């Protein structure tokens, strides 16, 4: 059944004089995993809160699973992780999970929620003793408790360490494979690139782009050269390629350039170690930057 899980129809949302979203229309089909990207203040969290029915659109219509997003009926099928949520102190993680399960008609078992959310080791801890990253994990486990069809995640990996993020995304990929629909926001473009099958780009409250990560990257005419090298090399690489954007992330150096061949030739001439070399068309980062510059000229 090709029912839309989320549908925005000419949605506008004002906060007083601030227009957080303007004329935004898109649909998300069942089983899609969609990244909502954009700079701070672009309207990502507002869009998520509209889907969750926490806010109403000022104009237009938001539908979730075929009903108005504020209809209570959709909530049994939704799991959410919001941007900043402090857990009520005085409770153990297991008690919170059991409570959350009691709210849903078809919950996961405690064991399953703990395993999928990777909080099995935290069950007996009081929530006020958790670190920031552990708290995010608990919030993710809470979002899974109701065995939701649709997951809405607002910056789910903010505050997680690299290992937690990797494990988190492994779980997310599995959920997507099992037919769940997922809409998430992130500041790590790599995450969107690797795990989303579709990217919605918000820019000043407008939907500036909608496509696969591949399509967005190609649109830029830029390429990314990525290889493993110790960070000590980064300065050398920057000096060699002064016009290119050079980033260091997780033991890898990435270079965004319109001319990957020349860049590679220069790097090899200097004997920069190019272990695990990878060249991909475009970069999401460049796509975002281009859109932002284009927006400034308008």
């Amino acid at each position: 059944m090709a029912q839309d899980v989320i549908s925005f129809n000419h949605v506008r949302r004002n906060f007083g004089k601030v227009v957080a979203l303007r004329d935004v229309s898109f649909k998300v089909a069942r089983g899609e995993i969609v990244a909502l990207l954009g700079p701070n203040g672009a309207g990502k969290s507002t869009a998520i809160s509209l889907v969750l029915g926490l806010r109403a659109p000022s104009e237009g219509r938001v539908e979730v699973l075929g009903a108005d997003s504020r209809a209570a009926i959709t909530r049994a099928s939704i799991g959410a992780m919001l941007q900043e949520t402090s857990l009520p102190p005085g409770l153990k993680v297991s008690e919170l999970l059991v409570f959350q399960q009691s709210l849903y008609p078809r919950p996961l078992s405690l064991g399953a929620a703990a395993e999928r959310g990777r909080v099995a080791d935290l069950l007996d801890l009081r929530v006020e003793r958790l670190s920031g990253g552990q708290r995010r994990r608990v919030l993710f486990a809470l979002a899974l408790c109701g065995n939701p069809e649709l997951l809405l995640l607002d910056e789910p990996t903010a505050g997680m360490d690299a290992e937690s993020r990797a494990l988190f995304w492994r779980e997310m990929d599995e959920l997507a494979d099992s037919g769940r629909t997922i809409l998430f926001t992130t500041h790590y473009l790599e995450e969107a690139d690797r795990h989303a099958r579709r990217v919605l780009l918000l820019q000043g409250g407008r939907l500036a782009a909608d496509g696969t990560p591949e399509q967005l990257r190609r649109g830029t005419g830029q390429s990314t050269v990525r290889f493993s090298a110790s960070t000590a090399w980064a300065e050398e690489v920057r000096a060699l390629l002064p016009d290119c954007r050079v980033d260091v992330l997780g033991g890898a150096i990435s270079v965004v350039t319109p001319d990957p061949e020349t860049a590679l030739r220069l790097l090899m001439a200097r004997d920069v170690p190019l272990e695990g070399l990878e060249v991909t068309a475009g970069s999401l980062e460049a796509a975002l930057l281009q859109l932002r510059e284009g927006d400034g000229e308008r």
Partner: protein
Amino acid sequence: MALLRLELTRMLRNTRLVVFTLAFPAGFYLLYTQMYGAQLHLGGTTWGGYYMVSMAVFGAIGAALGTLGTRLAAERAGGWVRLLRTTPLTAGSYVAAKLAAAVLAAVPATLLLLVLGALVNHVALTVSAWIELTLIVVAGAIPFAALGLLLGYLFDSESAQAGQVLIWLALSLLGGLWMPLQAMPKVFSQIALYLPTFRAADLARLCVGAATRPALQDIAVLLAYTLGLGALAWWRYRSEAQREYV
């Protein structure tokens, strides 16, 4: 109900609340009945019986306020309420569980003070009078649960804790829970007539034969407070919802 259980668990683990609402009233009770003598006659009963009711009400309303007000404020500010709004839990059952927990929170302080009265100061009542007294003191916490709800929707965060404690202490003092009104300047007796603290204690003193006002009048004032504070809390909740979500 799951949320109620959660709330009660949190209450029992909140040492500060337990100390404030159990140790303080119990400590004051023992101290002042030792100091003045529990058998002293006052308002148709003994000091031991009179002050037992005062301190039971003092602890009970403190517990009711403490489980609701600032905690609700913190949950709103911290985003927990927002997360709950994405679940099938309705706003009505959330508030109902909060209120029920606040009223149930009044039980331990009430029982402790009555037990101390009976065992330490030999307050003698019939079984049915003990039961009635317990129920009245606990029910007397209802307007304070409504007050806690309102404070929860007025205050913005945990920093308002001090404000809530102040309101608790001030209402208790002015309502004659700390010192009998007979021992305070006359004007305080006039003020106290309008306070839910005085009315809750006066109604409960019926059971020890020391009520000073008609029971129906006490009940009417307590009911008026409950409805008035409840309506204000509802109005705050609505206006916030209008601003935030619509």
